[in-house]
């Protein structure tokens, strides 16, 4: 790891100030950032640890939505009775990220802000049509993600919480990449107020995406048959050692059906 300077601000204002330059990086759970720095693939001059900010904590019901602080760890979300009751699929998703030790450190905000194409949370954010709240604004899921590792977040902008509308049905199906255990393909299917959204992670070479072709039929009839033969274009899929485009596109179809059936 290259030399860096570590800060742990106590207030959001201080964090914003420390992070408002292009040599700084926000550190939440660090479960992606620190390994990246260890491999000398990232060299931020300073790290601004967000773990001391009370604004990023907490899980609460917010009308018909579930509001989760960006600093909540995957273990917090997986073990929260409130999440389990309101959106069990989200608790299951959080309980399947990484491994138990990673889940004790990694956070919702960190995962969503990083937008790794194989991360799990972006699928839930998109399928549940969540709203991302930052220190500056609120951003709809559909306009938040901007391709691989890119989001609309600006310098010095910090996700404070994410609000998930509570669906009537939802399920996340993940097929692990054998070595990394990241999602080779992950599909989150949800029905909220009669509207169905299906979001896919791990597969798209432009990051998380919606399987819009299947959503209409699912809104009309929530069944695996409605997914039918719908699958993304194999040419748009990530290709690596563990999955060709054909295979990933096929898995998207299989997992979408399974998610609808299991929801």
């Amino acid at each position, binding site marked *: *790891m*290259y*030399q860096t300077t570590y800060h742990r601000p106590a207030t959001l204002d201080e964090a914003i100030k420390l992070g408002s330059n292009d040599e700084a990086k926000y550190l939440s759970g660090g479960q992606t950032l620190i390994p990246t720095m260890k*491999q*000398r693939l990232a060299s931020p001059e300073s790290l601004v640890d967000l773990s001391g900010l009370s604004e990023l904590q907490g899980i609460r019901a917010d009308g018909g939505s579930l509001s989760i602080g960006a600093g909540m760890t995957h273990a917090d979300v997986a073990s929260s009775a409130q999440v389990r009751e309101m959106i069990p699929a989200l608790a299951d998703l959080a309980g399947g990220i990484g491994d138990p030790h990673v889940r004790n450190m990694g956070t919702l905000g960190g995962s969503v802000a990083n937008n790794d194409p194989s991360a799990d949370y972006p699928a839930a954010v998109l399928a549940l049509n969540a709203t991302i709240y930052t220190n500056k604004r609120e951003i709809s899921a559909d306009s938040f993600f901007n391709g691989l590792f890119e989001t609309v977040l600006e310098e010095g902008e910090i996700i404070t919480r994410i609000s998930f509308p509570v669906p009537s049905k939802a399920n996340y199906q993940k*097929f692990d990449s*054998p*070595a*990394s255990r990241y999602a080779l393909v992950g599909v989150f299917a949800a029905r909220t107020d009669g509207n169905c959204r299906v979001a896919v992670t791990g597969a798209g070479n432009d990051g998380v995406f919606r399987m819009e072709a299947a959503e209409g039929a699912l809104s009309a009839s929530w069944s695996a048959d409605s997914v039918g033969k719908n699958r993304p274009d194999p040419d748009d899929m990530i290709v690596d*050692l*563990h*999955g*060709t485009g054909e*295979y990933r596109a*096929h*898995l998207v179809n*299989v997992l979408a059906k399974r998610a609808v059936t299991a929801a």
Partner: protein
Amino acid sequence: MGAEGLGARVLRKEDKRFITGRGRYTDDYDLKDTTYAAFVRSPHAHARIKNIDVSAAEAAPGVVAVLTGSQLTDDKIGGMICGWMVHSKDGSPMNAGAHPAIAVDIVKHVGDQVAVVIAETNGQARDAAELVEVDYEELPAVVNLKAAVKDGAPQLHPEAANNISFDWAIGEKDATEAAFAAAANVVSMDITNNRLVPNPMEPRVAIGSYDPAEEHYTLYNTSQNPHLARLILSAFVGVAPEHKLRVIAPDVGGGFGSKIFVYPEETVCLWASKRIGGRPVKWTSDRTEAFLVDAHGRDHVTEAEMALDENNKITGLRVHTLANIGAYMSTFSSAVPTYLHATLLSGQYNIPNIYAEIDAVYTNTSPVDAYRGAGRPEATYVVERLMETAARQLGISPVELRRTNFITEFPHQTPVIMAYDAGDYEASLSAALSASDYDAFETRREEARSRGKLRGIGLSCYIEACGIAPSAAVGSLGAGVGLWESAEIRVNPVGTVEVLTGSHSHGQGHETTFAQLVNERLGIPIENVQIVHGDTDKVQFGMGTYGSRSGAVGMSAISKALDKIEAKTKKLAAHLLEASEADIVIEGGQVKVAGTDQALGFHEVALAAYTAHNMPEGMEPGLKEGAFYDPTNFTFPAGSYVCEVEVDPETGRTEIVQFVAADDFGTIINPMIVDGQVHGGLAQGIGQALLEGCVYDEDTGQLITASFMDYTMPRADDLPNFQVSTTKTECPGNPLGMKGCGEAGAIGSPPAVINAITDAIGNNNLSMPATPLKVWQALQQTSAAAE
């Protein structure tokens, strides 16, 4: 059987330090004034070094020295060696190209050493390593075996035309041709044995320390054989004379073969310590470095054919293998695809004619050498995939085909050197079939089908050759060393015992099993026995631990030394008790006159030996004996494995729903430890079959699987509980009747898994590792063919 003697399930003496975090691994040693080494490694698979500019690195904070290959040459430090000479078919010796510890002109694989930075801290060394500017001229690279032997391929070593280090053959060519000409049926297959990365959990570490006053070197090293390391580093590499070099291999966190070899890094740490005036130099590999520079395993491409007569008796076997040896020939790389592989191609079967040709091929990849099983898994995979395929083609039961061809009389001379001494292959097959409820499999297949799963069953009957081996025999085959083992028993005046052994324990539990042997023979509790190993200053010499040899060879040496201790003890006790030596027995820690109540405690005899107040005429004081044991033959563990899988046809994912192993290891010292060795071997074999595969980019030679993010290590949820059991025929070749158990699981399991999956999916065209992607693709082929 005593509570702590041979055959007892004794809990391990060594556990306490490991479960409390007080093990002492090499990286845990923190010598005074240590400096830290970071290697500058080639980012290219093949390139000419035009210039190295170290000035910026030398000026970086904390840097003590930056050293390159030319300085190594100036100091007359030699290169790495391959210690086993193999000759080609035409009688010419193998072409082992130079392997400098730090490259001078040309780098030959990604990760090849180019320079080393030594600094006050590890972080400073790594920071400065990035400042070493190397000007490369990239050369075309080749990583694929078939491409490497083609005309016009990039050439790695000038002495090895077409990148072939040697083309070796074994068996009778003409007789085998004749058997094929007369065959009723011939089964042919192209078989790939995937390249693996050993990945013991402890990465390699070396600490070199030079004492200028004594002109003496000490190396702390993650080694399976510290004496061999000392021998090679002194006699061949020339870092230090043998009497001025001490090698210590303390607790070692797994080896699986990869820590047998003498690598560049330990050479450099020793040499650099002298260069910088005697401060210790420590290098700790990280995992990515381990992927790049630890010797890999397997990597064969084989064309294999089996001839059978009208009664389904095998009449011939013909094999042509390209074996990848990587960019340089590692310490034992030449022996693995030849004497440890082709000599096992007879399997458990009576095969009158075998002819195998092995071409050892250089590629721009990390060196390839012994990894758990070393050659024998490759042989077993060829034979057992052929057996299963033959049974399917002939439309007969795979069990029956094996039974029809089993060797049933011993000793049995195969056409490929090996003389099997003892075995009962039907016994282990029957045990495995019965434990797996093989006969009821079709019912289980139907039940799985009703759940949408494809269930399959696969069999593997393996044999291996362990112990390795009579020194004269291996010498005649080209080994540069003998493969005996040594032991020394030191009885202390109070009757406690130290056993000094040349074997090295890095997970095998020697501190327990070796003590059990002492308990069996002298009757003293194992807590009064200390096993000393892993230090060339303490143990006179030893050949180390690999090839499942520590029991069959290492313990045989201890047994021989104990014979001498017993003899002297009896003689002295007879003198003290005024009895006839022939009447003295040693039992339960007592030295007794048989049939009387006259006895001395063993500790009393020991004390008498050291006080020497009353010794028999001519007897020297003390009670300490040593022995060297040279095996009379290889040992031949064998067994049968049954694997049952379920495949999800929608995703291609395979689940192992049952795995049964029935092994014949001869005499067993500690069944708990033996079961554990089998479990671990099975995990590595199943890992090879389902998960693990080392992949290089064919164009650039970059290692694609360079971390656990891409190389699939078996995890707990990839594996089932194993059903293991043993059958027993004693090995007649050593005093304890032991055969060895360390490698069996890794040798026998891969074909069982692939035979099961191909049975499940109805497509025999499947290579390892059978990842979900590959199984799904094979299923697509099957359904396309059916349409």
